[in-house]
């Protein structure tokens, strides 16, 4: 069974089946369970993925892809963690306010073939 549509809620959400559409749980946590298969854009405060997600994922706080997770898409969040063993193909953009980590002093340019 696949559920299609737009899903919004004001409480935490756990997806254990197949879903296609958009999920908007802006102030809460979305958990995609090990059996969950989601083809959708997800927006939430925190997102935890044990199952499969195909689509853009945006979290105000953190995205956490666990070992069994399989994600294809673009991630945008203040923090992202992906466990070793998970599958992820896509891009990650960290939402931040601070500055870049200081880099060491610049060496002479123009590398030479060796």
């Amino acid at each position: 069974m696949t559920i299609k549509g737009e899903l919004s809620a004001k409480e935490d959400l756990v997806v254990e089946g197949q879903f296609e559409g958009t999920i908007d749980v802006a102030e809460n946590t979305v958990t995609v369970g090990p059996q969950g298969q989601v083809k959708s854009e997800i927006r939430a405060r925190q997102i935890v993925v044990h199952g499969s997600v195909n689509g853009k994922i945006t979290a105000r706080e953190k995205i956490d892809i666990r070992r069994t997770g399989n994600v294809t898409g673009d991630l945008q969040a203040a923090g992202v963690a992906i466990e070793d063993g998970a599958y992820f193909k896509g891009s990650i953009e960290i939402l931040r306010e601070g500055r870049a980590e200081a880099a060491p002093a610049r060496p002479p340019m123009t590398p030479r073939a060796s």
Partner: protein
Amino acid sequence: MLARPGRSEAGTDPRSAPAPSFGLRWLWQYAQDIPRPCVLDCGPIRSATLAVLLGRSGRLYRGDLISPLKRPDLWDRTRKTPVFRTEALLAELPPVAPASLSIVFGWHLLDLLPREALAEVLLRIHKLMEPGGVLFCLLREPRLEKGADAEWELEGLTGLTRAREGAVAFPYPALSNREIDRLLPTGSVKTFLTRSGWREVLVVK
């Protein structure tokens, strides 16, 4: 904090001690004027590496080109001589605009690729790199016979650790810098020798 992987059954840690990498030091100094570089990591997921790169990147792309090399479906065995499906491997790359990447971490991908696929993969990565972009990779010395299954991770921007030493024999002869240089339309190759049997090679577009 995620659990640290790589501990053996005996409870000892098989990872090499973190060593300062001169290649990485050069890389980050070279890229210091780019406040938020676009980075592509082509290796297996290592949470430690991810944390380091996310701290420095503007946008981090991930597409593992190394793990899929074990998949039998990457070889077309319907012909007399099996043919490597290079396009199937390259499908593991995420969508990236041409000439947009500042840094690519290729790890030891080039040592694992069938030689007939080397040029196409290298050219695809080269195409995605911006002018002045850098491909960081590790190439084995000819004397190093095993380590095809080695894995690395970053401990800080310039600390390189082998998370797995690797015991599997390399499938193809060692590559020389000249071979890499010949396959590239433009750019230069810079090499840092190490005692570990791996060269740190930086290809600058």
